[in-house]
């Protein structure tokens, strides 16, 4: 861990913690700077848990194979070599690589009938992660950004959105689009610790606070009676969140998890990332995204999925159990989505290529009717034969699941832009 490695002796770190205040103290935290009250009452963790809705967006970057997961076609030429296993939902079988999720299928809803047409990584990722086709003059915000904005608790000192994308291929930063940059997620990329949350070398917490106090008071004084003074208020609010985020370093510190939890999630990166996600969700971060790259198995598809799917199966199962045990699953929407699926045709290098005409995604938790399997593809998995769903439908379903009307709109200049595309319909069958 890079924390406090060289410049800060242990007692200093301790002092600093005291100074900044414990995160899990549960006491109401009020931060008053330069006369602007920022936090107000922050509900204690248990209240948060009852009131707040959250979402976890698991992004299987690169395109996971529906055949080796949710929509197997055993015995067909397109089916590949894996066999199927029964699930907790009678009559529904999944790929044998997912025994743990099969046992938890009554908590999951699977949509097997996505037809999203676009099969180029970047464009497809834009489409699926916004629910909108690309428009030249209007950049749509990523779903997580919208969810974070809508689910955010006023006055929270925590980030509204943490996006974790540790691998570099296909890495995308959730676009705020036409929404303000204020809604940008906190990015975790090279490290599980956010950037720039450490006290600068050689500075004491008092000095750090002292200069901020001066900065804030100069700014407020300057803003008095200015045309556009409200911009300064927003500017000061951004700075006011700095301390909260610096204090949240322990939130991001997996060393604080008991060894048993770490072992339970497993020591693979995806396991650790999901453990961190649970930690964040539990602490009250309303929106977390975990990207698991990179599923683009153009060659040796089955060997790749032997590697990737069991890890996914085990980790997601542990996560669902853990959220459930902590009483968070009912208030946390879990979304499992890729930019597209993979071709029915197995190519000469035993790979599967990009395919968006018939593929699958899955949901669990908040607002989801567990144990539902929606839509169907034909016997070779080439076409959707029942319940065709679009990217917009997925977005509308997500909004509806957490209780947001997908038809609500943002005003962008002269244009009212609904959260989900005008023709999108929530998939009611999978909603509780």
């Amino acid at each position, binding site marked *: 861990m890079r924390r406090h490695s060289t410049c800060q002796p242990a007692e200093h770190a301790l002092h600093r913690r005291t100074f900044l205040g414990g995160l899990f103290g549960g006491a109401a935290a009020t931060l008053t700077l330069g006369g602007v009250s920022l936090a107000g009452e922050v509900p204690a963790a248990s209240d948060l848990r009852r009131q707040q809705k959250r979402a976890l967006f698991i992004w299987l970057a690169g395109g996971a194979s529906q055949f080796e997961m949710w929509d197997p076609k055993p015995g067909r030429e397109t089916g590949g070599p894996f066999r199927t296993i029964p699930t907790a939902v009678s009559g529904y079988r999944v790929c044998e690589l997912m025994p743990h999720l099969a046992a938890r299928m009554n908590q999951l809803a699977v949509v097997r009938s996505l037809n999203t047409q676009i099969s180029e990584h970047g464009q497809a990722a834009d489409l699926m992660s916004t629910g909108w086709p690309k428009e030249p003059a209007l950049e749509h915000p990523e779903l997580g950004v919208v969810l974070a904005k809508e689910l955010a608790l006023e006055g929270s000192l925590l980030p509204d959105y943490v996006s974790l994308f540790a691998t570099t291929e296909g890495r995308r930063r959730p676009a705020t689009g036409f929404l303000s940059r204020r809604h940008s997620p906190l990015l975790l990329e090279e490290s599980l610790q956010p950037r*720039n949350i450490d006290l600068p070398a050689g500075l004491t917490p008092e000095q750090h606070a002292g200069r901020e106090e*001066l900065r804030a*008071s100069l700014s407020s004084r300057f803003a008095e009676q200015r045309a556009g003074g409200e*911009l300064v208020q927003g500017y000061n609010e951004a700075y006011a969140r700095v301390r909260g985020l610096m204090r949240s370093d322990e939130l991001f510190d997996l060393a604080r998890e008991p060894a048993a939890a770490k072992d339970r999630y497993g020591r693979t990166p995806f396991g650790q990332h999901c453990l961190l996600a649970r930690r964040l969700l539990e602490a009250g971060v309303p929106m977390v995204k975990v990207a698991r790259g990179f599923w683009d198995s153009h060659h040796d598809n089955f060997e790749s999925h032997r590697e990737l799917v069991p890890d996914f199966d085990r980790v997601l199962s542990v996560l669902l159990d853990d959220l459930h045990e902590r009483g968070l699953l009912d208030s946390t929407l879990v979304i499992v989505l890729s930019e597209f699926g993979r071709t029915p045709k197995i190519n000469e290098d035993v790979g599967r290529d990009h395919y968006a005409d018939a593929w699958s995604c899955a949901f669990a938790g908040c607002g989801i009717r567990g144990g539902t399997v929606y839509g169907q593809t034909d016997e070779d998995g080439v076409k959707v034969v029942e319940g065709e769903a679009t990217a917009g439908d997925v977005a509308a379903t997500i909004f509806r699941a957490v209780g947001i009307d997908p038809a609500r709109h943002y005003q962008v200049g002269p244009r009212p832009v609904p959260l989900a595309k005008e023709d999108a319909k929530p998939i009611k069958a999978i909603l509780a």
Partner: protein
Amino acid sequence: MAGGIHYFWTGTIAAALWWCGSPSWASADDPPAVARPESLAAEIDRRLEAHWQAQGIAPAAPADDATIYRRLMLDLTGRIPTRVEWEAWLADKTPADERYRQALRQILDGPEFPLYWGAVLDEIVQGTAAGSPDFIDYLRRSLRERKRWDAVFRELLIGPWKTDESKPAARFLEVRAKDLDRLTTDTTRVFFGVDVSCARCHDHPLVDDWKQDHYYGMASFFNRTTGGKGNLGEKFEGDVTFKGAGGTQKTAALMFLTGRVIDEPPPEEAKQSKFSRREQLVAVALAEQTLLSRSLVNRLWQQFFGRGLVHPVDQMHSGNPSSVPGLLEWLAGEFAADYDVQRLVAAIVSTKAYRLNSRWDSGSPLPDERHFAAMRLRLLSPRQYALSLLVASGRTDFAAAEARQARAERLLGAKGVHRAAQYLAAEELAAPLLAQLDPAQDGQSSVAEALYLSNNSAVQALLGREPGTLAARLAETADARQIAESAIGQVYCRPPAADEVERLTNWLKQQEQSSQPADKHRICEQLVWALVTAAEFRFQH
């Protein structure tokens, strides 16, 4: 040529050398960059005053001298003035109007204006594709040569892209050539101030002006464009078809936004005469003139006032009139007479309106920003903020050329090379900061920038004490009061006010008492940090 002239051959000076090939910055024989923009400015003011009167608005008072000079420098060169510069400005006893005129002319004729505005125009033109050094330099050369805006428009869309100097102009098309929708939409938004993309799928639901015929008519000017980087071309056949209302398939007419349809020769003839649809677009846009001129005037107005006369700037249509009736239309007409960007810039910044205070002292409520009755705060762009941080922290001094350098510039007929090199060096230093700073567009501040400035080690180092930096110089000053005065002067480009000196002095003393042992360097670094992250520095005002 190297060797002897010491400062000349730093890393960035070579990049600055293209200035040398052109005429010097402002030799005595040159015509002034801006011929009498004052009459345009006066007419703008007259129209604004009439508008205010009609609206029952009393505008804000004029801003003070120091504020005006900072504002002008930030808007025309992308940085705050140095202490030497603003003190000279305040000390100058020339009558106010004449002094402003001289300063403006000096800035517009100097090397920094085209360097900064090349980057500004790049962002206007390229949007998300901005940042190509070659393209920026093309725009810088164009400004330097006083190339007319209609000529730039022509070069971007039809070339010729034959020489090394003109090749980068093809970039606007190159990065969009593979995407007809983007090419169509971006061209109409950037150059004509119109967003017709909604009319792609159906007649525009909100704007009566824009029908599918407009969108596909505009697309038709580009559908024959082929190739990409280095091999742009145009075919002589192929039409755009689209599904119109009721599902009928239609072939788009070659139609400009104004509804004017271009007659096209039959395919065989078109091939023989090398009929170029893009040339037709340039011809019709220049002939119709209104959209091209209004779009740029409106976008420049936004640069200086924070919002367009028509706002948003890509929503010029009959349902969204200019907020000051007639002003945009008239000014665009004036601009279309010579398409002279410098003259337009000079006219706008010469207005009284541009020099109004951002403070609203009057008891009446602040009028809506669309009336331009006070100078509204604007977040500095990342480029402005980063360059200004370098000036304030003392990392870049923009010192005048030493005698020998000045002599060398004169000998080579290359006045301004020294300054251009300083500017490019500062630009390189600023580059790593740009992506970390909030863009000015929506005026919103992110916590990411606040975290970056608060804790990033490179930022702390930038503001830190090293020989010659502000923090180091302050630490050498004995008296707390003097430290406060000196810091305010360097960072805020104005003389300090008594109460704020008091405030800072107290703060310094308090810090000194509470830190054991007192570390004056550190305290001065923190003072600099607080000043450059405070709103007065972060905003244009």
